[in-house]
């Protein structure tokens, strides 16, 4: 059994003597007998060696040999080794929230740079220090909008990630917010229908770019109309796409939120991920979560602190802008290191590579009889309509060594033959061509 308590018998004896009791059990005397555990039936401990071997066995029951074209908002991007090296520095990963600035300038400065980079790629003014994930970030954005204009209706495009929408619906169940979902036209946002829903009771409008089906659009005009009647525009973005895609800032979104997993975080079966939030200047004081600000110390030296804490739960309690306390700081650190390594050129080139590779696969699949790829601009993910049920296709592609994509039937009942396929820069030309060949075989 591995133990991490360093006490020798003598230590325990001496400490008990100083405390003035004769056994450790006496220290638990406040817990009445009738409240003691009815059971505590757990296995005996094991050595580190045995433990690693058990988990190794478990890990091997997950397939890691599949060549993945699975996305759906979470992508198999390349992660430079330096990201792991920095984030595994003990000084970062075994620190707490930087409440004591003199002992936490490392974390504070890194988060400050993170805020700068997230605002920079989103083309907006400010970003917070992170939220849990893309879905909870979307809820927080909606709550912010409702706080801002005190309205109740929220219009959400059906092209927003269904996982995010489900989270939002869970969260609002007990508060006074009405969610109105606007259907897609095939796989495209129905801008006219969206516009027809906008009125003076509408708190916020939510769209995603690229949308869940991979379609890229420009929402600038829609946001402009929304703004004219006091509606807050929320854009859900995919950070890596912003190497080429028009930014939330360029579209004049008020709040941009997104899943930050693509910025140097492993897929890790769903987390830890990273909730991104960037806002236009005037929303900054309504923003939830930690925010790092620059100031000076007593000697006038540049220094960094958690700021605007009067918004937060530890000060405001039930009147706080959010209940969030722990966030995803280490994930934000990974993102800032990732973006620093990328730089302007790497960021753009990675996005271009993704787009180029996806286009190649799209072109190849189009050549297969019976496969239709709906019209529309895409980035690194696109929807193909197959001549068979997408779930069956995926099943058969597993046998060929591919995770072929996401059948939309997982989330949308009426689209059984639609398959959402993602291609990242990690997929080689060879893998793409092999995938197309395997698909042709499966579909023939």
């Amino acid at each position, binding site marked *: 059994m591995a133990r991490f308590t360093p006490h020798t018998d003598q230590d325990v004896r001496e400490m008990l003597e100083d405390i003035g009791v004769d056994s450790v059990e006496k*220290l638990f005397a406040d817990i009445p007998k009738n409240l003691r555990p009815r059971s505590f039936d757990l296995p005996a401990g094991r050595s580190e060696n045995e433990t690693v071997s058990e*988990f190794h066995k478990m890990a091997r029951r997950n397939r890691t040999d599949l060549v993945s074209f699975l996305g759906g908002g979470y992508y198999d991007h390349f992660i430079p080794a330096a990201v792991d090296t920095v984030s595994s520095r003990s000084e970062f990963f075994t620190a*707490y929230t930087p409440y004591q600035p*003199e002992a936490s300038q*490392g974390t504070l400065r890194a988060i400050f740079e993170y805020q700068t980079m997230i605002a920079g790629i989103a083309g907006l003014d400010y970003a917070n220090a992170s939220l849990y*994930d893309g879905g909870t970030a979307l809820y927080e954005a909606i709550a912010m909008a409702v706080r801002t204009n005190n309205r109740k209706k929220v219009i959400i495009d059906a092209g927003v990630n269904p996982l995010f929408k489900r989270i939002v619906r869970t969260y609002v169940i007990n508060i006074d917010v009405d969610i109105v979902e606007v259907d897609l036209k095939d796989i495209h946002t129905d801008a006219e229908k969206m516009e027809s829903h906008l009125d003076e009771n509408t708190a916020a409008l939510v769209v995603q770019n690229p949308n869940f089906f991979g379609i890229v659009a420009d929402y600038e005009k829609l946001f402009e109309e929304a703004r004219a009647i006091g509606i807050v525009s929320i854009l859900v973005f995919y950070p890596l796409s912003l190497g*080429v895609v028009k930014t939330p800032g360029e579209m004049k979104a008020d709040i941009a939120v997104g899943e930050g997993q693509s910025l140097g975080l492993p897929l890790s079966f769903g987390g830890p991920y990273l909730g991104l939030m960037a806002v236009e200047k005037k929303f900054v004081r309504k923003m939830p979560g930690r925010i790092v600000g620059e100031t000076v110390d007593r000697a006038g030296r540049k220094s960094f*602190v958690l700021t605007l804490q009067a918004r937060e739960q530890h000060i405001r309690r039930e009147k706080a802008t959010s209940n969030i*306390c722990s966030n995803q700081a280490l994930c934000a650190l990974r993102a800032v290191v990732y973006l620093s390594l990328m730089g302007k*050129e790497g960021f753009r080139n990675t996005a271009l590579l993704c787009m180029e590779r996806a286009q190649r696969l799209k072109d190849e699949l189009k050549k297969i009889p019976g496969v239709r790829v709906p019209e529309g601009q895409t980035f690194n993910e696109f929807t193909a309509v197959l001549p068979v049920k997408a779930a069956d296709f995926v099943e058969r592609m597993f046998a060929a060594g591919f995770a072929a994509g996401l059948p939309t039937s997982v989330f949308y009942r009426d689209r059984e033959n639609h398959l959402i396929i993602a291609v990242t820069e990690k997929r080689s030309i060879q893998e793409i061509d092999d995938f197309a060949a395997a698909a042709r075989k499966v579909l023939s």
Partner: protein
Amino acid sequence: MKHIFEKSVPGRTGVDAGAVGAGAAGLMDPRFMRKSDSRLPEVSELDVMRHYIRLSQLNFSVDTHFYPLGSCTMKYNPKVNEAVSAMPGFAGVHPLMAYIGEEHVQGCLELIYNLSSILAEITGMKGVTTQPYAGAHGELTGILLMAAYHKSKGNDKKYVIVPDEAHGTNPASAAMGGYTVISIPVDRDGGMDVDLFREKMNDEVAGVMLTLPNTLGVFHRGICDIVEIARKHDAILYNDGANLNAILGKARPGDIGFDIVHMNLHKTFSTPHGGGGPGAGVVAVSDRLVDFLPVPTVARTQQGLYRLDFGHEKSIGPMSSFFGNFGVLVRAAVYIMMLGREGLIDVSEKAVLNANYIRVKLKEYFDLAVDRTCMHECVFSAKRQVQKSGVHAIDIAKALIERGFHPPTIYFPLVVDEALMIEPTETESKETIDGFIEAMIEIAKLSETDPARVKNAPNNTPVSRPDETRAARELKLTCNS
């Protein structure tokens, strides 16, 4: 020290992304394309390494310093946790695989299933969700479970009772869930005032949120009465399990009568706090709330296969995109397997031993918030120092930093003036704790002989005390603003 942006040189890059074809940019209609600068720095990989490694050196952390931050359980994080969570069979798995081919991710599902069962046993509960990403997220989950329970019985309840010593997240979570908060003061013993509680309790109270042991570090003597009173009004008892590290194998929230408990895996089960996260706020519930748990859950078939279960029609719905912070769950599962039953009991015994040792050694020098045996943390007040020499809790904290110790939590709980909340954890040795006690005593003495020195600390850190008022007034939140 310069920002990474100030090290930027046009044309430099830290990665070679790969060869992009000449026509790539032409694949997208320019209308949909970015025209503005991405505002990212242009630096080499070595620039990045030097910059962030140097930044790391400006931090205090568990691996470099004693970190007795009350309520945060800053215990040692075994490194094997990191090694296992980074195994490609865990770190490399796409979560949607569970939706399209669960037979290919049996290991991940098994891990979630097993960890859930173990945490149910540790807390004495019936059902578990691993979805919440952090303690506060677990609290919100609990509040929504509470609301769904009452709604299913056709009851429309409006209030949640929270004692005033509670973490700020408790009232904030209750409010986020649509409830009005009733705050109840603590009595002289440090527990919620039971008479006042009885008085305020009524059928419109949906739930009661209690931290156990509470933030004053005491095990609530009135707990049995509170359970009984709450039950009478069909209020759900919520346990903020932030302090679970004190009672492993000594008491279980389920046996006591709680219906919901959240656990902070990043506290009790040794997953690193990462400078503010990620955490994991796993929630366990009693029988009567199992049907309301977030979906999907992981079920085990008779054939021994693990699969996603969306079956609960009463479910509150998902709280997170998938199964919570899976990488954090892996770390906690590793820790629990290594320690086993006896090891976990040992954790609480040594945590409580360490805290009481500090309590008795320092009580002569600082006023105890509650003078009685404590659990895993002890809370002092610096009011004696304030009265005598104008030295405040924050000054003591800064003087500790100067002496190489991360300070305790200060000014919390709010019910204690000038609070200093010390949680040593079980992984610290007697020598380390003796060193800390010595430093505290020295600071107490210095506060009398030379208070200015305490008030000017720290002097040996990368920066001295920053001007927080200025930070909030002249907002500068990005490098280029």
